């Protein structure tokens, strides 16, 4: 469903293991294959601790995988060093969850949004004022905010500044780690509108980490569901609630509260909590919570298989 020539980032067999104090290995990401396309959004959903942020951090060089390759324009970014790495950093930027802790509180807004430009010598010091104003107006903030400090702004305004900083270098790819979960719903809506507008105008690819399926469905082109370090389903974002079929995705979907649901119905939920990633079940990672678990699921780990256009699922229910 996506054009292969628009392929921007191709992650292949990415695995990350962390050694623990008692000498065991914790697998945070297990053989992850994902593709990001130009100008499209990939939503990564899953519960806390499932490895979504760990994976996204590889793309911005905050960490590197134990195994696997991540190709950006055909080059493996996990092996980049020195000048090449520095050069490539400007193409991939990040927006963090909590804008109040991702800024230096002693820097003015204009210094914050222009810092990346100064780092790459795109502008000179004397151009900072004008450029900051331009960037702030791009994210629909008054240009006068340039002389403020982060603590003088509301959460929604700060998140807009974070977006302004991320787009300052005109990157090709932005990672957004729960960029709207700290915001009120009315503010969240306006921030999502801003993000989608900027994406259209500048053809930016976005990797969006989220745990709200209702939200991700509203603006993602493809959605990947992650559970205990494994991708269990990849599907198109549009009409997600109709096509998603992995039992875990269905459970996530059933846990969403929205204002148009049937209130007389008891809310469905999956039992218990995910097992510790140190102590994975031998077969399917979801086997101990799955309502349809069979003998085979306990022993054999399912692989991702294609069941429709752009739709892959890792579950024995869908393999013969």
């Amino acid at each position, binding site marked *: 469903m996506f054009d292969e020539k628009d392929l921007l980032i191709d992650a292949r067999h990415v695995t990350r293991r962390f050694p623990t104090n008692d000498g065991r290995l914790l697998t945070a990401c297990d053989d992850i294959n994902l593709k990001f396309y130009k100008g499209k*959004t990939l939503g990564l959903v899953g*519960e*806390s601790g499932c490895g979504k942020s760990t994976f996204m951090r590889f793309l911005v060089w905050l960490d590197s995988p134990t195994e696997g390759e991540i190709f950006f324009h055909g080059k493996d970014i996990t092996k980049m060093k020195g000048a090449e790495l520095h050069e490539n950093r400007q193409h991939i930027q990040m927006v963090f969850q909590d804008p109040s802790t991702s800024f230096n509180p002693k820097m003015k807004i204009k210094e914050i949004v222009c810092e990346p430009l100064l780092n790459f010598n795109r502008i000179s010091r004397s151009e900072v004022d004008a450029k900051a104003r331009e960037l702030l107006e791009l994210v629909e903030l008054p240009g006068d905010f340039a002389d403020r400090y982060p603590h003088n702004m509301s*959460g929604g305004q700060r998140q807009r500044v974070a977006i302004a900083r991320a787009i300052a270098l005109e990157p090709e790819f932005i990672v957004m780690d729960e960029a709207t979960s700290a915001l*009120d*719903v*009315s*503010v*969240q*809506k306006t921030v*999502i*509108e801003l993000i*989608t507008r900027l*994406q*259209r105008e500048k053809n930016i690819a976005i990797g969006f980490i989220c*745990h*709200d*399926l*209702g*939200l991700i*469905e*509203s*603006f*993602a*082109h493809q959605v990947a569901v992650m559970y205990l370090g494994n991708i269990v389903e990849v599907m198109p*974002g*549009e*009409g*997600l*609630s*109709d096509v998603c079929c992995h039992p875990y995705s269905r*459970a*996530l*979907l*059933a*846990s*969403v*509260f*929205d*204002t*148009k*649901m049937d*209130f007389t119905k*008891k*809310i*469905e*939920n*999956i039992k218990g*909590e995910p097992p510790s990633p140190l102590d994975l079940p031998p077969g399917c990672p979801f086997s101990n919570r799955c309502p349809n678990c069979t003998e085979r699921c306990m022993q054999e780990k399912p692989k991702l298989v294609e069941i429709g256009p752009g739709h892959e699922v890792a579950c024995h229910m869908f393999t013969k």
Partner: protein
Amino acid sequence: MSLLEIKNVDISYGKNLTVKNCNLNLEKGEICSIVGESGSGKTTVIRAVMGLLPGAGRVSAGDIIYDGTDLLKLTRKQWRSLRGHDISMIFQDSGAMMNQTRLIGDSYVEYIQTHEDISKQDAWAKGIEMIERMRLPDGDRIMRSYPFQLSGGQRQRVGIAMGMTYQPKLLLADEPTSALDVTTQAQIVRQFMELRDEYGTSIIIVTHNLGVAAYMGDKIVVMKRGEVVDQGEREYILHRSTNPYTKLLLDAVPTLGGKRYV
């Protein structure tokens, strides 16, 4: 007679009038959701009901009547027997209300012994029973853990278990699910509904998640900048209300199969 009546209440922090003219009635077994953006005064209202306004906060006008008694005229001693017994509160992160350097069981036993003349062993057993009733397996292990050793969902269940120990008539919940994953949130919401069905507990839930508010609340109160701008039955708020702010909030909630931006 209503279980709880909040009549023309003003709440101030020092000289700042934070909540203006708040009115609310809650019947026995009824669930009321208070929604609004951050800083709209939702939490201040339920803290006032619990007599737990921080710092210089005080109720500067109006009455809060619980089951026929005026809560604002209670002495410290009367408060102590009421709080945690007839009225309980559940916080956003129940782990944060417990002493981090003490076992959960020790905090729990202290709480039980404050309200009841009971031996330590019996109090411990009562704690385990309540924790297991909240569907946490292996209550003894939980009692022997420190708050930071449990996951957010487990901690929240311990908080609910503590709050429900004496089957209070009124339960106040301040954003009880906002720190949790969607799946855990669904489990906790379901548990709240079961509390109401089993014990007839009245609940006031403060949340900014309109989906949760709509699912749980028989009644919904919408607050904005310290004022109640709209309130009514769920069906009225969701479908018939003409208040522009209520409409704006409802419109902003992402719904499955709803509007797409791309």
